[in-house]
């Protein structure tokens, strides 16, 4: 069993290195710009928001990594394991709550202040000519 696992891992890594034909050319090094040939190398500084998101991802991802081994043996650990893991998860909730409060995940440039719901769908049988006229509801359709 273990040999099969190792063989599979090796095969998937080594085989592609060995068998893939390697023909590098200039276009393959160039950044992919949806097909447009970029004349200039865009030297931008990425906005800080992206790093913030990356950092919070790492924190939460590591948390999940620790949950996996716990999930396989949590029956044997019993109450002690449950409490320990609960403390661990709670401790990690604090930074997540801070992130939400400071608005790191709020990408919206302009807050959609009024959460107006979707408007009604309207129908009219006779023709409407005046752009400003709102001919009532017509037969309101309970979509």
């Amino acid at each position, binding site marked *: 069993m273990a040999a099969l696992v190792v063989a599979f891992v090796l095969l998937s890594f080594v085989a592609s290195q060995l068998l*893939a*034909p390697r*023909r590098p*050319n200039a*276009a393959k090094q160039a950044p*992919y710009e949806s*097909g*447009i*040939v970029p004349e200039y190398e865009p030297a931008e500084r990425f906005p800080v928001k992206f790093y913030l998101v990356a950092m919070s991802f790492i924190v939460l991802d590591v948390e999940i990594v620790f949950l996996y081994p716990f999930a396989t043996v949590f029956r044997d650990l019993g109450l002690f394991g449950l409490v320990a893991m609960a403390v661990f998860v709670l401790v990690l909730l604090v930074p997540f709550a801070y992130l939400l409060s400071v608005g790191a995940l709020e990408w919206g440039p302009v807050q959609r202040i009024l959460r107006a719901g979707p408007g009604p769908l309207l129908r009219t049988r006779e023709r409407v000519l005046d752009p400003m006229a709102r001919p009532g509801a017509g037969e309101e359709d309970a979509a």
Partner: protein
Amino acid sequence: MGLEQVPHNFLTARLEDVVRWGRRNSVFPATFGLACCALEMMATGAAHYDLARFGMEVFRASPRQADLMIVAGRVSQKMAPVLRQVYDQMVEPKWVISMGVCASTGGMFNNYAIVQGVDQIVPVDVYTPGCPPGPETLMHGILTLHEQIRTGELLRRREASPTGGAGIVLDREPLPTSSPVS
């Protein structure tokens, strides 16, 4: 070093068949839908004519993960450099299906705006006729391509004549092999 550098003898014969079988069964097309043929390509990929049976249901958007370019639609003069750039950025080994008569020969638009046949830009392996070719025609073209991949005849043809397709090809010279990449 690639499959080509592997010495071709009875020891490695089975390896080549396995590699070709692997390539044939997981060809990922790059979404290169241009015009009406794009709708028929989507119809082929959709539920009824299902390309997933051939392991091709995933239309990769970026050329980095695609190894088959289906040129679906008419290629205009303004689109030609973009097509060539996307073709160059595709990973090796790569194949091209020219879908529809507009891509194959300029079709009914024999005028200033359309490239009369996409094989003037990229080497084409399979041409599917029709305007737009029905999903069956496209699948027949894909199966012919699969067959040629399995027998390895496609790669042999590409090595034999660098143009590969019927027309002239403006190929960019590959980088010197001593580049840091390899």
